[in-house]
């Protein structure tokens, strides 16, 4: 963890349960209004306005409502949620609890990825302590009717379960295959009941926003992307780690901070993100420009960009759930294209076909996984055409 001057989540002076105490004294609608004023957008990467999601779930009719914390942090290059769950678990649970008050939920679920099972004992012990302190269970903080508890549900090694409808399918005991949307989980989620699925960081931020006020949070960032964001920085740089920075930070600014100024390229947003070459280092990390769930992978000079594209495509071939054709077959075809390029046997005409296939996948895949899977490949062949074409086959 690296400290920055204004730490909203990672600072050591974050007051315990301040947001929850405030939320307990507020009418539920006021909590959502505060989050709306903050302009908070989902931190998993998609950037859906959090208050809108909560309002829809609050207004939806249902016998039981659910708050799901999406801790299926599977995007390659992302580890900020691991850090939050390790060092700020209370803040995450606090955010879930006040979200429950906002939408009227009685039941919370943390969907923890199987790879993070070693974190489970720690999280369970925090939950036990919170129950003992009256921060979970019946009549939370002495407020009549404020009943909420959280259980941990383990994932089983499927990247696609980070997609919210696939996650709900998995919770219900099915294969983690995304659902068609609409309907959305806010109306028919877990057991067909109104459900909000929020990223770990989003929930932790909500707790801070209710404490400090929406207007305070909205002061930071850009008009379309308010506040601070955690960035998971890895790869060829001197100081990898989690950085808390305002939205709209430029790629080059971040690289200077982490000691990676000589980078050849930066992969923003993990495997499903975009590769940015030196010519675009003045672009900003925010929803209006380079949208990201926080993954920044620094690719140093001398690295083989085809190998980068290959790594990501192999990932998607493995992790496609197989439901829709563009994703199931498209990623295999793109990977074959990379192999052809690596063998130095790809014509420009064929490369154009691969580009067209990538565009088709973006338009026609069923869920975010398939739609974003060709992005890294497309941005690499676009920006590094001279490097990837005409390669000599390796021995």
């Amino acid at each position, binding site marked *: 963890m690296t400290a920055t001057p204004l730490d909203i989540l990672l600072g050591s002076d974050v007051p315990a349960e301040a947001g929850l105490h405030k939320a307990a004294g507020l009418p539920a609608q006021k909590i959502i209004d505060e989050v709306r004023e903050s302009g908070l957008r989902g931190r998993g990467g998609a950037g859906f306005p959090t208050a809108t999601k909560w309002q829809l779930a609050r207004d939806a009719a249902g016998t039981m409502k659910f708050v799901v914390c999406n801790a299926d942090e599977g995007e*390659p290059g992302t580890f900020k949620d691991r850090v939050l769950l390790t060092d700020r678990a209370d803040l995450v649970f606090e955010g879930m609890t006040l979200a429950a008050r906002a939408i009227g939920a009685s039941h919370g679920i943390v969907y923890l990825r199987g790879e993070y099972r070693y974190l489970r004992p720690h999280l369970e012990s925090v939950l036990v302590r919170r129950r003992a302190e009256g921060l979970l269970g019946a009549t939370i903080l002495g407020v009549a009717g404020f009943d909420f508890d959280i259980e941990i549900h383990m994932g089983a090694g499927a990247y696609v379960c980070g997609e919210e409808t696939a996650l709900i399918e998995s919770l219900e005991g099915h294969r983690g295959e995304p659902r068609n949307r609409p309907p959305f989980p806010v109306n028919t989620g877990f057991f067909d009941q109104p459900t909000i699925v929020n990223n770990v960081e989003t929930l932790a931020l909500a707790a801070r926003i209710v404490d400090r006020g929406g207007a305070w949070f909205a002061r930071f960032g850009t008009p379309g992307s308010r506040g601070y964001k955690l960035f998971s920085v890895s790869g060829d740089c001197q100081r990898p780690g989690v950085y808390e920075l305002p939205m709209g930070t430029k790629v080059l600014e971040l690289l200077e901070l982490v000691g990676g100024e000589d980078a050849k390229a930066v992969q923003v947003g993990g495997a499903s993100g975009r590769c940015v070459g030196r010519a675009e280092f003045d672009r900003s990390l925010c929803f209006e420009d380079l949208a990201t769930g926080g993954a920044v992978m620094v690719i140093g000079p001398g690295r083989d960009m085809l190998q980068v594209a290959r790594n990501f495509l192999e990932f998607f071939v493995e992790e496609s759930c197989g439901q829709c054709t563009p994703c199931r077959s498209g990623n295999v075809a793109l990977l074959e294209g990379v192999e052809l390029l690596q063998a130095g046997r790809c014509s420009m005409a064929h490369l154009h076909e691969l580009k067209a296939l990538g565009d088709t996948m973006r338009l026609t895949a069923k869920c975010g996984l398939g739609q974003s899977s060709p992005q890294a490949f497309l941005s690499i062949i676009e920006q590094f055409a001279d490097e990837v074409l005409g390669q000599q086959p390796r021995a």
Partner: protein
Amino acid sequence: MLIQEQRVLEAEIVALADRHGRKRSALLPILLAIQEKYHYINKFAMQEVAALLGIHPVEVYGVVRFYSFLHAERRGNVMIRMCRSLSCDLAGKDAVARQIENDLGIQFGETTEDGRFSLEWAQCLGQCDRGPALLVGDTLHPRVRCAEIHEILEQARAAFGVYPLRHAGVAHTPHFHYDPMAGRTP
């Protein structure tokens, strides 16, 4: 599978179903518990779980096949997962991976003959700032180096004790080796 073995497994599955609830949403927790103890989920287990939850056994099979942490074929007592994502790749995962293969005597996707270790690639383990990352059972080894692999494997082996027991969680004697699932394909 012997009747007695089936009865033991059946009782365990009933206990799991009672603990997690006899409903479809209990399926994954139940399967993960069986996987952890037996290192795979055989056909008998799938049928038992299906009967208790009131679903078709093939529904259970479909779920087992979907998730990479669930296996229909026997895996080793200890699962070794090496992260293959880009950050670990840049940090030098290939050399470490090769050394694990050398020290275990198997390749990725295989299980050692004594049934102790399975070796698999993992998609991102979420340790990108401290790669290359290795998961041995539930123990995480960040920034792992080739020269450390032998010691890491020896530590894992120490947990098995003197006798080559296939299930660390089950009481064994060296003379009577009891293993409900040994040597059977599901």
